[in-house]
């Protein structure tokens, strides 16, 4: 190529490329031609459908809607208005006005944003007449939540305005719109929300609306939200909240035959109506900053604790399944279990049998540590290496839904921890670990961590004699059946025949006068349960109880966890039996025990603990 030609050819080539690009943009590519909000000549008007209602399992209305009115602003259209009058109408100061105006302008001068959110109804009536005077402002109707019960904020959740991060991720939402933030509001957001309708309105150069854009070709109709029926029994839920008041912890009750969650209590809790209205953000901040009580944590789902003695059920079932013990196997307990020759290698036991042989049944109702340490050790040592033994054990335990998310329809959850061979190989890099290194696992201490809902689910699996349904919170959507994943049973790796002897032991826990929870026995109801007292480095032991009833054809399985509640039968046991009685009969026979729960408080204990922590920090 001659030197003289280079520039000329380049000009031609660029010309062709640019025309090609224009041809692509303007003729071939259609994606740019649908009107968007960024198109100022076309105004978008949204129609927000009413959010679906939430009912409890008995049809009691829990969450409804109330209308709310937002003052919206389009900054570029604000022209020659009497700002002082507007300020006094909206009851804001002049500084506030300037601040809000600038914030809206920063977001966009032509896209509407919320100026004053959630006006009261009477303010609206008054304002509506005057709004026409203020160009650039208009009133947007929205529906707000109204919680009809002062209960279960962790289950119901709340809605709030979307933030900018979320808008970037999900283009459905515009600034100022509402989205479910926790609980079912969050997990069933799209079900409850419905689909907003969009109307495209053509405007002329003077911003006057001159009719639908392209004869409404792109308009969509709002689709109303769906109503949801929860599996929660609101009466039981509220009763649980009353029982556990002034104590920290969680209660999870499940219907074993369906996996439906009957109650999901977390304490301390708060009034769900705090999360509605103009003070929502103030209230939220207050709850959020309460790092001592952590009311926004759902302890039933997010509290990870060592399960303690209820885990012995799994130890027993695993040992039976692995054929290392049978129902007649007995172990001598000498106030503890010696698992090594070193001085400290001794696990204490309080079963009080003083050296007489303990059978499986008795081991369960007396909660004998030695028996289960022995059974656990036999399971692990059955296999040539500890690693294989541990993996087998892990497989059995995890088949009860422990150590993993349950894949349910709840907005939060924790995995918990069930160790396996790998875990200990990492823990002891030499690889020379044996069953005795991990012996605490046998009694639900050691490395094991579970959440209350996992324990409740485990109890349901035992109650069903070997299978469970994934625990879930929604029973029906618009009176239609829910997802099949919740109606297919999940089987554990334990044969059905091994459950009866263990359940017999659990029955004796309450029935036998020497059972660890004989105090919690309820006349006329066959309750099977297991106490737990989990050691805890921060203070008093945790009080744990799991139970199901009746023994045959169980209707309810429950797990109760009370932080620093000293021991299982002190708080968790009574709460469980009261909940069971209330659910099955609707009455309470042991009213004095009920009163003790209503009035009992562990606040002093928590304060003491906090003092100690503060002293630690100062050191």
């Amino acid at each position: 190529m001659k030197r003289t030609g280079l520039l000329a050819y380049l000009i031609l080539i660029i010309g062709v490329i640019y025309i090609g690009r224009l041809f692509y943009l303007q003729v071939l590519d259609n994606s740019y031609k649908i009107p968007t909000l960024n198109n100022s000549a076309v105004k978008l008007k949204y129609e927000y459908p009413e959010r679906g209602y939430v009912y409890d399992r008995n049809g009691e209305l829990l969450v409804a809607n109330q209308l709310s009115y937002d003052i919206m602003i389009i900054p570029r259209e604000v022209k020659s208005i009497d700002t002082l009058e507007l300020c006094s109408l909206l009851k804001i100061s002049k500084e506030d006005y300037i601040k809000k105006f600038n914030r809206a302008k920063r977001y966009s001068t032509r896209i509407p944003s919320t100026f004053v959110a959630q006006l009261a109804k009477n303010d609206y009536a008054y304002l509506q007449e005057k709004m026409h005077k203020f160009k650039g402002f208009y009133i947007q109707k929205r529906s707000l939540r109204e919680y009809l019960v002062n209960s279960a904020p962790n289950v119901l959740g709340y809605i709030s305005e979307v933030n900018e991060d979320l808008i970037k991720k999900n283009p459905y939402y515009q600034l100022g719109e509402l989205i479910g933030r926790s609980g079912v509001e969050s997990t069933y957001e799209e079900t409850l929300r419905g689909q907003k309708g969009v109307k495209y309105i053509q405007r002329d150069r003077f911003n006057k609306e001159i009719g639908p854009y392209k004869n409404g070709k792109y308009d969509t109709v709002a689709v109303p939200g769906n109503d949801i029926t929860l599996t929660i029994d609101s009466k039981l839920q509220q009763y649980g909240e009353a029982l556990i008041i002034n104590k920290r912890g969680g209660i999870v009750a499940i219907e074993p035959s369906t996996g439906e969650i009957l109650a999901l209590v977390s304490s301390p809790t708060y009034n769900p109506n705090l999360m509605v209205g103009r003070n929502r953000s103030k209230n939220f901040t207050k709850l959020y900053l309460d790092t001592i009580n952590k009311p926004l944590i759902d302890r039933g789902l997010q509290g990870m604790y060592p399960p303690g003695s209820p885990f012995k059920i799994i130890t027993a079932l695993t040992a039976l399944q692995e054929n290392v013990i049978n129902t007649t196997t007995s172990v001598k307990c000498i106030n503890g279990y010696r698992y090594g020759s070193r001085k400290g290698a001794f696990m204490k036991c309080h079963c009080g049998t003083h050296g007489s042989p303990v059978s499986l049944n008795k081991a369960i109702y007396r909660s004998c540590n030695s028996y289960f340490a022995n059974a656990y050790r036999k399971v692990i040592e059955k296999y040539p290496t500890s690693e294989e033994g541990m993996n087998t054990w892990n497989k059995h335990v995890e088949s009860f839904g422990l150590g993993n998310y349950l894949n349910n329809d709840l907005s939060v959850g924790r995995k918990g921890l069930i160790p396996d061979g790998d875990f200990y190989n990492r823990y002891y890099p030499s690889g020379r670990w044996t069953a005795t290194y991990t012996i605490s696992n046998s009694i639900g201490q050691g490395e094991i961590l579970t959440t209350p809902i996992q324990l409740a689910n485990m109890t349901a699996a035992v109650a069903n004699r070997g299978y469970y349904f994934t625990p879930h919170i929604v029973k029906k959507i618009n009176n239609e059946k829910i997802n099949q994943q919740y109606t297919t049973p999940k089987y554990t790796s334990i044969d059905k025949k091994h459950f009866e002897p263990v359940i017999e032991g659990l029955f004796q826990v309450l029935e036998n006068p020497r059972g660890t929870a004989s105090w919690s026995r309820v006349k006329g109801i066959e309750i099977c349960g297991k106490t737990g007292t989990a050691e805890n480095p921060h203070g008093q032991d945790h009080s744990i109880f799991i139970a199901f009833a009746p023994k045959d054809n169980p209707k309810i399985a429950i797990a109760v966890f009370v932080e620093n509640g000293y021991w299982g039968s002190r708080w968790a046991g009574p709460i469980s039996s009261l909940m069971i009685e209330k659910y099955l009969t609707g009455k309470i026979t042991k009213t004095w025990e009920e009163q003790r729960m209503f009035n009992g408080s562990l606040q002093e204990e928590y304060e003491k603990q906090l003092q100690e922590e503060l002293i630690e920090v100062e050191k």
Partner: protein
Amino acid sequence: MRSKKNNIFLGIDWVLVGFYFVLIFIGWLNIYAATLDEIDYDLINFSTEYGKQLVWIGLSIPLILLILMFDSKFYEKYSSIIYIISVASLIGLFLFGKNINGATSWYNLGIFSLQPSEFAKAACALAMAKLVSDKQFNLKKINTQVQAFSILLIPAIFITLQPDPGSALVYGAFIFVLYREGLPTYYITIGFVAIILFITTLYFGYLNVLIATLALFTLFIIYFYFFRKKVLKRGWLKLIGLYLIVALSTISIDFIFNHVFQQRHRDRFNILLGKTDDIKSIGYNTNQSVTTIASGGFSGKGFLQGERTQGDFVPEQQTDYIFSTIGEQWGFIGSSLVIILFVMFTLRIIYTAEKQKSKFSRVYGYSIAAIFFFHFAINIGMVIGILPTIGIPLPFFSYGGSALWGFTVLLFIFIRLNANRTYEW
């Protein structure tokens, strides 16, 4: 000075003059559309931007006459002085300049402001023409190369310091002029390879580019060894050296991009390369202008019917993004017509330049063709979203008096030089 040539229009290339007025006319119509305010509805209002632009256009007529009045010898003779005055005016900005939008590029002259960098292009083209037309001039010599590059680098550096790197970039156009006049080919080759390395490094990361080039070199060696049955003897050293250079420049590109560039510069490239996709903040302008152009469709929405233009949706639409107005209102037909106009206009200048008998006139003409081309290619490339955001005006279209006058001076000096060709001998 002139005896028998009292008619200053003698020998004028009316085709170029015609192009000039057509482009200015279309340009003004679009400025009108882009800046028309809803409230004010007078046909002509001189306080508005389209009104002011009309004043500038009107005042360019006496400017044109003034340029045409001088003999072409005048431009040749005084080109060095014009160049020095122009550079001085750029330096003077640091003392007396006015800061608009973060760049000190303006002199405030009471009722209007002037941007000396718009006139420096013409001065630089004159100086370059003067240098190249020297009989001793030989671009094969390093000395001459240094001279030539200094002429364009001095104004470019001062403009970069304003800071207005976009306008400085235009001086790159002179590479084509120098190449035309005998600059060794490897300058172009190196420039080309550098651009490719730059883009691939940003897109794939420098490690991948290093690996890919290494693979390419290996393939090259294998090819020679097995298929040409040739063993590279001393070629090895050259290859390794070449690879080291490539590697070094790739790594330095990565370093410069991540540590020398400012975030806004990085964003512009990242958006273009599709590495970030943020249409709300950083990519906003480009996204808006592309959407606006696309919404024009095949035949456009018609004059003043562009809803996105009327809605002021594209920022800076009357200046750097004026082409989007054309795209929306006149559609594919109108916007490709404008591109064809520009292509024909620049080709016409090259064609006329090549016909010059005087080397001075030829180099000058070639320079302004390259400058117009750069402006047109970079500006439209940015507006249609295939080049990063670089703020330089579209000649004759973008709002702004200095730019209009700058381009007018640029063009009409050439028309003057060309006119003299016909009766010089």
